């Protein structure tokens, strides 16, 4: 059933509504509750297809549903509609305003209503798609302060990588932080790339979501998961490669590649002078789980992230790349 989570009126003849679809067992029973959330960043669309796939699969076997599935496909409808990452008109990153405030402005009010609506879920999955610049292997990112509770759940989500990262004050204004601190276990998924849909990744994550639903006794049908994540919780295991010069980055390998020291990741070229500005090489042995998709780079732009020290596990994955 479609429900309006919250609604505000806009200046000229329009309402802004945050909507969700609530799916429940046919027999009217309640059970536990999972919330699938996406679209906080208007340029991240991978979650759109996941929301659809989840509903398709439930519709095929409604008798297997024993709990509540709430689907929130568009947390930032303005952003999605205007191909904008943040909230247009406010120039604001929606994932920096949680938990919001019912007494605050329009966006803070909406944020507070969203947190209130998701509260009470047994699990929330917040699906992101990196940004328009980088492509990511399907992964779950976990703030170290929630690692104990969330890593065991993330292991069941059929992703390829679980990255436990350090705490930072700035991240305290994300939806996931707000929910986790209110006792709602929330997994943040990053996968694929902005402005695109990667069907295989969406299907992979959908399997993971059904596996989690089975764990929570929300879903009774068999679920087949094929991916076991590599877990990294050591701070210096991830190598960041930032552009040493401004130019046009042309990648030489795809994300998921296994790299040795000296392997070429891409070239930074100068189309005006016809010169090669930099050959981007891997400084170490590792697994390329992030690679730059958007060609233009400024000095400092991120081009790649490489996971060190898990070569055997990464080699077993082999086909993780697109």
């Amino acid at each position, binding site marked *: 059933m479609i429900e309006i989570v919250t609604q*505000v*009126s*806009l*200046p*000229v*003849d329009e309402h802004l509504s945050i909507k969700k679809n609530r799916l429940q067992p046919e027999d009217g029973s309640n059970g536990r509750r999972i919330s699938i959330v996406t679209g906080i960043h208007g340029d991240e669309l991978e979650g759109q297809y996941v929301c659809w796939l989840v509903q398709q699969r439930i519709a095929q076997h409604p008798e297997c549903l024993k709990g509540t599935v709430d689907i929130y496909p568009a947390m930032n409808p303005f952003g999605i509609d205007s191909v904008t*990452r*943040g909230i247009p*008109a406010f*120039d604001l990153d929606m994932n*920096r305003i949680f938990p919001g405030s019912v007494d*605050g*402005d*329009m966006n803070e*009010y909406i944020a507070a209503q969203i947190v209130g609506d998701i509260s009470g879920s047994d699990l929330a999955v917040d699906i992101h798609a990196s940004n328009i*610049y980088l492509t990511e292997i399907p992964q779950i990112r976990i703030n170290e302060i929630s690692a104990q509770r969330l890593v065991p759940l993330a292991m069941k989500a059929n992703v390829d990588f679980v990255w436990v990262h350090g705490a930072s*004050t*700035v*991240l*305290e*204004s994300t939806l996931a932080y707000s929910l986790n601190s209110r006792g709602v276990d929330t997994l943040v998924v990053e996968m694929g790339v902005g402005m695109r849909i990667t069907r295989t990744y969406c299907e992979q994550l959908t399997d993971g979501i059904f596996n989690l639903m089975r764990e929570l006794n929300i879903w009774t049908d068999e679920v087949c998961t094929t991916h076991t994540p590599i877990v990294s919780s050591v701070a210096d295991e991830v190598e*960041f490669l*930032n552009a040493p*010069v*401004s*130019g*046009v980055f042309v990648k030489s390998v795809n994300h998921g590649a296994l790299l040795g020291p000296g392997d070429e990741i891409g070239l930074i070229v*100068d189309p*005006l002078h016809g010169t090669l500005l930099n050959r981007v090489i891997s400084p170490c042995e590792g697994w390329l789980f992030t690679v730059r998709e958007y060609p*233009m780079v*400024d*000095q*400092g*732009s*991120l081009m790649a992230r490489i996971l060190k020290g898990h070569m055997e596990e990464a080699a077993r994955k082999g086909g993780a790349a697109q």
Partner: protein
Amino acid sequence: MKKEVLYEIKALYRDDFRVTGYTFGEGEKALCIIGSMRGNENQQLYCCSRLVARLKQLEEEGRLIPGKQILVIPCANPYSINTKKRFWCTDNTDINRMFPGYALGETTQRIAAGVFEAVKGWQYGIQFASFYMPGAFVPHIRMMDTGYQDTELACEFGLPYVVVQKPRPFDTATLNYNWQIWGTHAFSLYTTNTARVDEESALQAENAVMSFMARRRLINHHPHGGYRSEVIRSADFVSIRATCSGFLQCMVKPGQRVQKDTLLARILDPYEGCVLAELRAPMLGVIAFAGDEPMVYENTAVLKLIREEA
């Protein structure tokens, strides 16, 4: 006066990105002043350009106190001003959310690191800051409540108010916060405007900085005029929110004292012209901020009032 490039990035097609600083006097690193960091901060840049001209004149007249150095960085982000983009052109990130910066990180982290390298270690730091909402503010000094803030020093600017604000999560990545943490007495100076240049409030800001420099014995100058600043907490601001969306018709100006129940603004129906809502003063107070967007969203804080005891 010494003009030098403090930080530089080579670009592919554009002219190189440069942060330029003007140094006056020699010796102890006494005062650092920084202007615009965002592409819409024209007033902040304008104020700095006036100060550069003023300091140049003081230097020529021999009125700088020997042994004290003053650095002015009018603009930490010329790229965004030139393209009329509020944030960093390529990835829309905000330099003032990147401090203290990271020299090996993303572009705006590098710029923040480069700027911070130049501005850290000074005894006093002034940033011409801007409010995120379009409108007019009563001129004030704002400082983060880090435990290091010195409100008495802030009163030396002689602006009407000194506002102390509890840091929110994102504030920890601003220049003001990091300046304080690294031992600089940091002041964010808010003039009336941001995108529009306002001569009157630019002059007031210039005089405020002149007063501060004179009282801190950095220049030979007799401060005159100015206010006895009132120190308030940001929690003392009362937000008056639009009760519905529509055209905003604001009837008051910042600095104006209003009685309880005074009509402050009206919201008009954009199709039918009728009055949808009247916003009235909930108490006696002074208008601190008045929004000037023609069209407002429901729940937007269109006015801020500094409450006064009756």
